[in-house]
């Protein structure tokens, strides 16, 4: 099922296998988006056994079923693997094992690969394909980006915002010839790649704004190196994409470049263009008010950055902190709100906004103090097509206006449409 934007509500009756959903629960397996929140126990085998314990399966029968379920998902570690040492993809496969052990007839999946990097997502899809071949189970999948799932899917139902079914049929019936309809309702179609708006001609010489020299970082709490002696420049008017699997150091690099983390070795300095009169200043030493004027950082979870109770105050905060008068700050806030279509929620509390609105607000607040470098961590995470297109256009406009844009992402479509340069982590020194 593909739905137009997040936040749907269920209405009407639903019958599962001829009984009410509550009774049918024993035959239903549910997999949600966030793997972290679905793993209860700290050892892999115990987590799979959790559902069996709840079902009242006798102890002797539990462990053989756990082993069978782990094998069905291609589990490479033993049953005693600590769950906090697993990658997102491995966690999601463990959740699948836990669900499988209960032998469901109906598998419900809510954006199961949204939080995963491409490799993890691919493994989860392969595992599901194997499971569906081996069992007679029905799968209902809620997803935005359908392209990679089509081989597993027999039927597609497209929901419209506000309820009602837009399209219903086989994948070819639904997607072939309905491109425009889908685009209008913000539905991803397979093969849609997004287009960067035409750019002005770029002069060959681009000023370097931030320079990273001999930067090294380690995985927190261990001595395992994420990248060693990395040299990197962030240039004006250019989009740099940092790609790599989860845990490869993308966020760490983004934070180092953003002056938020102290580098263990090496340094990140500002050029004359970024910091007039103070060329070579080390960015992590800047006080926060100085930093916000020069480098804007947008975090993966917008809620981590909200500080006030109103959208209007959020937008004005950065400019005020960077030294502007209240009047000037208010003017900028209004301008940004219009540009990013946040004027409708001007008085709302940021925590009550929808996912797309929160994302737009977090980008707007980073832009409010007019920084020259903007660093974004996973900006297109789990978005419908409409919001994704907007983000693409926004980032392109930022670069075209002469700013340096860095995005840490594993969204290959975004990188293909937008990036001028790509850095892949883990990097060879």
């Amino acid at each position, binding site marked *: 099922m593909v739905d137009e934007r997040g936040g749907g509500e269920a209405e009407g009756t639903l019958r599962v296998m001829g009984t009410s959903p509550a009774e049918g629960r024993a035959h239903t397996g549910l997999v949600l988006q966030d793997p972290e929140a679905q793993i209860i126990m700290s050892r892999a085998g115990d987590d799979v056994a959790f559902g069996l314990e709840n079902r009242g399966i006798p102890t002797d029968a539990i462990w053989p079923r756990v082993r069978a379920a782990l094998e069905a998902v291609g589990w490479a570690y033993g049953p005693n693997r600590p769950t*906090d040492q697993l990658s997102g993809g491995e966690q999601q496969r463990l959740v699948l094992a836990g669900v499988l052990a209960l032998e469901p007839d109906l598998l419900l999946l809510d954006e199961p690969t949204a939080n995963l990097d491409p490799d993890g997502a691919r493994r989860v899809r392969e595992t599901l394909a194997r499971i569906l071949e081996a069992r007679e189970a029905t799968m209902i999948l809620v997803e935005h980006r359908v392209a990679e799932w089509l081989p597993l899917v027999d039927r597609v139902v497209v929901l419209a915002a506000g309820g009602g079914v837009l399209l219903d049929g086989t994948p070819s019936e639904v997607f072939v010839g309905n491109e425009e309809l889908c685009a209008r309702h913000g539905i991803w179609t397979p093969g849609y790649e997004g287009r960067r708006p035409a750019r002005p001609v770029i002069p060959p010489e681009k000023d370097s704004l931030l320079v990273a020299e001999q930067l090294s970082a380690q995985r927190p709490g261990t001595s395992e190196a994420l990248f060693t002696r990395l040299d990197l420049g962030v240039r004006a008017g250019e989009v740099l994409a940092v790609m790599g699997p989860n845990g490869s150091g993308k966020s760490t690099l983004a934070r180092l470049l953003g002056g938020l983390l102290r580098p263990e070795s090496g340094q990140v300095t500002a050029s004359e263009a970024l910091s007039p009169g103070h060329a070579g200043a080390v960015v992590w030493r800047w006080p926060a008010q100085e930093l916000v004027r020069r480098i804007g950082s947008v975090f993966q979870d917008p809620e981590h950055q909200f500080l006030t109770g109103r959208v209007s105050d959020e937008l004005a905060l950065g400019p005020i902190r960077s030294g502007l008068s209240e009047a000037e700050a208010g003017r900028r806030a209004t301008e940004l709100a219009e540009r990013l279509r946040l004027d409708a929620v001007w008085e709302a509390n940021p925590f009550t906004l929808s996912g797309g609105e929160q994302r737009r607000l977090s980008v707007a607040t980073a832009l409010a103090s007019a920084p020259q470098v903007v660093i974004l961590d996973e900006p297109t995470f789990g978005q419908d097509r409409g919001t994704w297109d907007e983000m693409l256009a926004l980032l392109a406009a930022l670069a075209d206006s002469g700013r340096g844009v860095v995005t840490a992402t594993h969204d290959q479509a975004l990188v293909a449409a937008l990036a001028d340069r790509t850095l892949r982590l883990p990097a060879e020194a």
Partner: protein
Amino acid sequence: MQLRRSTVADPTAFLPAADAVAKLGAAVMVAFVAFLSRDPVTPAILLAGVALVLPASGLRSRDLARLLGPLLIAASLLGVLNAVLAGTPAVAAAGDAPSRAWVGLGLGLRIAAIAVASSLALATTDPADLAAGLIGHLRVPPRLAVGALASLRMAPILATEWGTIALARRARGVDAGRNPLVAMRLALGALVILLVSAIRRASRMALAMDARGFASGIPRTLARPPRMRRTDWLLLAAAGALSGAAVGISVALGTYAFLLG
């Protein structure tokens, strides 16, 4: 920030392999008796008894030192400060310096005995085994025990998020600088965000647990049912004997002082 207990180097040593509830019971017995006595002799004997078990803890000396060191230092400080500053009524009533020192020593040793016994028991116990033990032996409702276990798993995640929120604030141009009042206000704001995040995670987790049949009314079985072996009963008996001996010796020496009166 590491919230997990220090890893047990040798899981086959006596303490880590012992039943979780037996360990907890032994620690509670020792701690309770220490709590009820005001003199230094009783907790000293208790501590000596607990020290005998240290080699069987399965922890490396380095980890043991890191676990117990701060507790012992804190206990000594409290005892000394009380004796010197006449903090508690008992110390004030004692009058002259040697009596005050005696009472202060009693306080310090009491705290040490309680802290060492309980932290040793907890450090050598896997939380999942403790939950299974509570459900299996003591008939604690699974909703409580498993719920607590699940939230324990979430704790390090929230700790990481706290750090992320601090970084996100710096990115917004907001930091406390040197002003402690501002720092406190910011910390409170961050706590609110953390609370929202914790509640959201908790509801997602509760949904996942319900989806796997938790608290559906069917009687639960246990994948790792706890078993009391002979050595576990011996541990409990030894703890009881130690507690009795401590009180007995103290009474025989005429030093015993009950908590009240």
